[in-house]
């Protein structure tokens, strides 16, 4: 079966600092994957390489069997890779609804219907006309999350989806992520909240100083010595 996403020895350094040091990984379609590692281990850089925001220095990236390294970020997005940012980024001076509509193409009425559905899905339909910059951080996070879904992406990259979201919303959010998987989408998430990672992910990749040091089901990863060492030191 064609992998949803395949990284082959992807490298990226900034000046003399190697952020991602030849990472290879393979995501099967319709599953939820976790990407964990201490601060500065290269998680966000890897996201940036996949989405084209940073140009990788070496290695190859395939999305559904098609090579995407070298494409522009918007081309990768149009192909069906959606992402959120670690520090939530909405368009502050567009309304919540406009934030969703600005990413779509084609039929405006259909897009608006879909946009309102998605806002209702995260219980923000009352705030559709409010400037996104006026929403609370958690609400902005939800707007960003459903904005990703507007394009109906088959691969969803979530950079710390749980950070700053209150407990009630968090359960809705986790449920939403599971539903993405059930719809056949592939999810890769960076998360520091281990409960979220353990409860959600089927396979976890662990990065440390730009190297992939472990890969496997969360239960096994938790007991892996190299992982414990990377997090807590020896």
């Amino acid at each position, binding site marked *: 079966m064609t992998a949803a996403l395949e990284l082959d020895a992807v490298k990226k350094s900034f000046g003399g600092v190697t952020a991602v040091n030849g990472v290879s990984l393979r995501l099967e379609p319709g599953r939820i994957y976790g990407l964990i590692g201490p601060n500065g281990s290269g998680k966000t850089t890897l996201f940036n390489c996949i989405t084209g925001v940073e140009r990788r220095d070496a290695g190859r990236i395939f999305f559904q069997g098609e090579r995407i390294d070298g494409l522009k*970020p918007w081309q990768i997005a149009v192909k069906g890779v959606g992402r959120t940012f670690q520090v939530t980024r909405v368009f*502050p*001076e567009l309304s919540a609804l406009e934030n969703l509509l600005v990413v779509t193409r084609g039929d405006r009425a259909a897009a608006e219907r879909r946009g309102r559905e998605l806002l209702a899905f995260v219980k923000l339909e009352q705030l559709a006309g409010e400037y996104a910059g006026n929403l609370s951080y958690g609400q902005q996070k939800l707007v960003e999350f459903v904005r990703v879904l507007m*394009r109906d992406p088959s691969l969803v990259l979530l950079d710390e989806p749980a950070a700053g979201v209150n407990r009630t919303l968090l359960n809705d959010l986790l449920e939403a992520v599971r539903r993405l998987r059930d719809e056949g989408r592939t999810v890769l998430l960076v998360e520091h909240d281990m409960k979220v990672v353990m409860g959600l992910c089927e396979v976890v990749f662990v990065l440390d100083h730009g190297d992939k040091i472990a890969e496997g089901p969360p239960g096994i990863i938790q007991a892996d010595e190299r992982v414990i060492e990377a997090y807590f030191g020896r």
Partner: protein
Amino acid sequence: MNVVITPAMIAQVVISGLLSGTLYAMVALGLALIFGVMRVINIAHGPMLMLGAYVTFFLYSAFGVNPYLTLPASMAVLFVLGMLLERTLVFRVVDAPELSSLLLTFGISIALVNLAQLAFTSDLRAVEFLTGSFVIGPVAVSKPRIVAFAFAAIITAAAFLFLRNTKLGKAIRATSQSRDVAMVCGINVGRIHLITFGFAAALAAAGGTLIAVIVAIQPEMGQIWTFKSFLVIVLGGAGNYPGALVGGMLLGLIEQLASLFLTTQLSEAVAYVLLVLVLLIRPTGILGGRST
């Protein structure tokens, strides 16, 4: 110096100020758009206005076209020229440090002015189309200024409606609010830059056409508009599009007010003194940076 201010003089100042302020707002909106979307201060904005004025002059003198009907032509010519400049030169400096884009657009500005001198000579040209004034009570307003105001108001309103309501307009605003996010959301940012630059050049061209009927046309007429537009967006808050409206009106009023008390040369200087003061005291502009 004793100046007696009568209500009629105040009325004259306010009306003249708002008339020219609208024109300033329209031209400066172009500069504000390029700055907002690309983070480039386009020094060549004024020379583009100059080219727009020449388009009008040649269509008027060669074919006798009503200068106001040349608006679509001058805007279209500069839209295309703006896109050409973006695609060949300006796109290279979008991510570069500010100094690179300042130097590049300064170079483009010099090139445009000198090419215009070469092609059109430095002779002063005029479009003598509409003369005389409307007199309402104690207030007199020249006809070409009224017409320029009307067209500028319509074009500016249309530009704001376009930015506010159309898909492309929203994509332009989204790009200026966060380029990275726009990219990963699937917005072709390069295309947005291209269109924005062309659109801004067209706004400058509209200004050129409208003032072609008011002032003498010559290759160096444009530079002062770069500086005035810059002042307008600084007054209104750089990167804040409605701020261009506020800044334009303020500049118009201040210039007119200054002309009440000062000689013409001195009142020209007031704008620049103001620029320095605003940058020192309130660098985010009167409205305070980005706001809705």
